[in-house]
């Protein structure tokens, strides 16, 4: 059968040629990679995907088999929270990228990096477990003396700089374009301290009844304050609630009374008496009292509600016996020891929730409740026998939640005409809309559909395309940083037990892991990332401390050199040979 023979020969030839030429593109691989690292790159922001891809490639140049994947943050979050330190193949994680910040203007690194704050009750998703870091954070948090605190935070920074538990890539500057007719836009967004603050907005030419919209990139997962750690969420719930103390504005970052009018503190910093503001009403019409503050703290302290702030609250209060109501508008606190967290985080950053509205919601129901989702309505019984129907969270803040429109990805607010503080703006109806993409948000601004947006859009590289007729550009020190974080229980770059040095001398395993991380750190071209991807809006990163914060030790924290030779030297120190 000559025809069949020819066909077979033809197929063989084509097959062999295809293989020889390589039908699929090839990628050069290290002959024998030292180890494998799975890097998850959140796929919700092209700019971050770019530096994530670059970071993965730079690490692979050190002889590491980096397997990167673009994933939504919904994939990362459960892996880091419930992974129990497991590696990626075991269901946990190895490395990922994120933009992060402290939950208050005063840095509170113990919430993120103390060994007491491991998940699920805490936010130390990275399992930073270093005695020197713990000690410095303990000293920082528990000292009444400002100088001693500054010394302690500098020790934290020094230790971090030396062992690089994660790679801080850069400190972004937030760039936001707004409607040029919008006045009173003075702050970037920052969870949970700064929100869009539309009650201060004045839109020219819209009289006394203006409508305004703010774009936020990612949709929220939760809208009950104690569940939220992202400012995509605080952008929405923030304008609804109040805190005990609040910040005057972004420029001064000065603390001013919120729901608390004043407080006294004993000499040892343990005994506090807080006077609460009288005459404040919840959106339902119910009076705000000390019971609401106690209810908020009790709820967060209750493990059944699984708040990510629970561990930090326990660190502050110890138990719920630490505070008690001593008057309708007075609460007395006896801390087990002084901690900076109480005044600078708990009182200034945590929103107060309404007891009358949320107390009957069971822990297992709260995440799916309309108070958290803003979908649908729910009815609240009031002390005067009447009822109030809510379409979202109930707060004391300047804005009343009026529900979510899932088809338009919009959250609607009406101005609280009975707000306890006089506000200057003319905006009476406000929307937060979810828009994905930098180009899309600028198109929406140009079309007049939005008046401002949150800084997630990283519009720095597009500033030259914004015409002053439709967009006014603001830039803020962001108080955030972009990092590549590592699972510090990983046997190579976490504990180091699987590094050649760690295997040879287990007592030096942690040292070996630090060498690997230092190698990663020196492989990152930070200046290039800032200039080329962030369009110059930022500063190269060193440690998890806002670059413009007074606590940042500019003298000690010299830029980390991009030096591949030095990086390979560190790998060699960890026992890897090239």
């Amino acid at each position, binding site marked *: 059968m000559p025809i069949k023979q020819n066909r077979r020969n033809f197929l063989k030839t084509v097959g062999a040629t295809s293989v020889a030429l390589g039908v*699929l593109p090839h990628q050069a691989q290290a002959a024998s990679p030292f180890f494998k690292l799975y890097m998850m790159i959140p796929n919700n922001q092209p*700019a971050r995907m770019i530096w994530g891809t670059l970071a993965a490639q730079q690490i692979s140049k050190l002889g590491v088999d980096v397997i990167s994947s673009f994933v939504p943050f919904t994939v990362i979050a459960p892996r880091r929270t419930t992974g129990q330190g497991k590696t990626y193949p075991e269901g946990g994680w190895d490395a990922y990228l994120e933009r992060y910040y402290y939950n208050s203007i005063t840095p509170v690194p113990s919430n993120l990096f103390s060994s007491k704050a491991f998940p699920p009750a805490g936010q130390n998703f990275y399992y930073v477990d270093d005695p020197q870091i713990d000690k410095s954070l303990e000293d920082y948090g528990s000292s009444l003396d400002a100088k001693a605190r500054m010394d302690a935070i500098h020790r934290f920074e020094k230790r971090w700089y030396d062992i690089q538990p994660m790679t801080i890539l850069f400190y972004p500057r937030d760039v936001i374009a707004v409607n040029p007719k919008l006045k009173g836009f003075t702050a970037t967004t920052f969870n949970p301290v700064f929100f869009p603050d539309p009650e201060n907005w004045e839109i020219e030419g819209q009289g006394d009844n203006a409508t305004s919209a703010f774009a936020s990139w990612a949709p929220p997962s939760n809208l009950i304050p104690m569940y939220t750690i992202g400012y995509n969420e605080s952008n929405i719930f923030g304008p609804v609630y109040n805190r005990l103390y609040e910040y005057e504005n972004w420029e001064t970052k000065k603390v001013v009374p919120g729901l608390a009018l004043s407080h006294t503190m004993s000499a040892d910093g343990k005994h506090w008496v807080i006077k609460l503001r009288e005459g404040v009403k919840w959106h339902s019409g119910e009076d705000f009292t000390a019971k609401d503050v106690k209810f908020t703290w009790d709820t967060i302290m209750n493990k059944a509600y699984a708040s990510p702030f629970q561990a930090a609250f326990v660190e502050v209060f110890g138990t719920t016996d630490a505070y008690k109501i001593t008057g309708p508008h007075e609460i007395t606190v006896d801390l087990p020891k002084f901690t900076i967290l109480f005044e600078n985080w708990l009182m200034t950053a945590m929103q107060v929730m309404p007891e009358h509205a949320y107390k009957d919601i069971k822990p297992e129901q709260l995440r799916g409740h309309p108070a958290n989702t803003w979908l649908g309505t729910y009815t609240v019984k009031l002390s005067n026998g009447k009822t109030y129907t809510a379409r979202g969270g109930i707060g004391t803040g300047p804005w009343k939640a009026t529900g979510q429109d899932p088809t338009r990805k919009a959250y609607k607010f009406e101005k609280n005409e009975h707000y306890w503080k006089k506000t200057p703006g003319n905006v009476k109806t406000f929307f937060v809309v979810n828009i994905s993409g930098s180009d899309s948000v600028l198109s929406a601004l140009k079309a007049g559909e939005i008046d401002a947006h949150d800084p997630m859009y990283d519009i720095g590289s597009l500033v030259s395309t914004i015409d002053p007729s439709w967009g006014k550009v603001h830039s803020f020190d962001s108080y955030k940083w972009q990092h590549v974080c590592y699972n510090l229980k990983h046997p190579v770059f976490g504990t180091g037990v699987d590094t050649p040095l760690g295997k040879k001398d287990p007592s030096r395993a942690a040292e070996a892991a630090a060498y690997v991380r230092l190698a990663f750190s020196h492989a990152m071209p930070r200046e*290039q990332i800032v200039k080329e991807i962030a369009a110059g809006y930022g500063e190269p990163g060193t440690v998890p401390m806002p670059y413009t914060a007074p606590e940042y030790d500019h003298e000690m924290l010299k830029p980390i050199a991009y030096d591949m030779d030095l990086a390979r030297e560190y790998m060699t120190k960890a026992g890897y040979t090239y």
Partner: protein
Amino acid sequence: MLGLSLIVFVVVVAVAAPLLAPYDPNDQSAMLNFGARAAPSLLHPFGTDRMGFDVLSRVIYGAPTALAVGLGAMLVASVIGVVIGGLSGYIGGLSDELMMRFTEFFLVIPVFIVILAVVRLFGIIVVGTWAERIPHINLMTIIVLLGLFGWPPIARITRAEFLRLKQMEFVEAARCIGATRRDIVVRHILPNAMPSLVVIIAIGIGGAILAEAMVSFLGFGDPKAVSWGQLLYFNYESLKVAPWASIAPSMAIFITVLGFNLLADGLSDAFNPRLKQ
């Protein structure tokens, strides 16, 4: 002819990519030297993109990926489509009914959602297994999925052709001389059905290339593969400040898909006896 010329051009570029591309496709030295988003120049004829890649090199290295996707997906789709459509048309009766309903079921599945979900799931399942060592496993998955969901049109055309051809006199003649059913199908009916199949397969190749570009554009592509869709994904937001990085891969997709569509058009005309007269 134009279609064929365009495809030959793309194939030549794909085969000779290492010789034609001025830089390695993964070379980000422009970024490291503060030269990302640089306008076209002698050094970088198509400029550099946001990631510091040389756009020309990435476009050139995207060609083998596009062809692998187009040809690979259609190979899978053709095999399934021809087998199911051929059996359905030749056997007829209840088998035909069942197989056509099965085909229609595949036609109504939202392919993209399935592809995105499977790519994500597969990316998790293969972790730590032997499959992970397969180069470009994500891309392979996309190719196979495009093939697995791209066969129904081929099956329907095959069935129609088999229904028509099995009544023809030359098939009757083959039966009379004692040809086996296998011979009748493989040596008599299938070759005569090929003209119609080649046309739909050629169109399918263009469609598959476009589909992969869309999957990559949605951020679900293979991070290690050089793909035109991914190039677009990473650069579309810089369209106003670095248009070259988006225009070049867009043109590459346009040329390739146009080439296959024109080829299909040409083949359709070439196989049409009425046009020949």
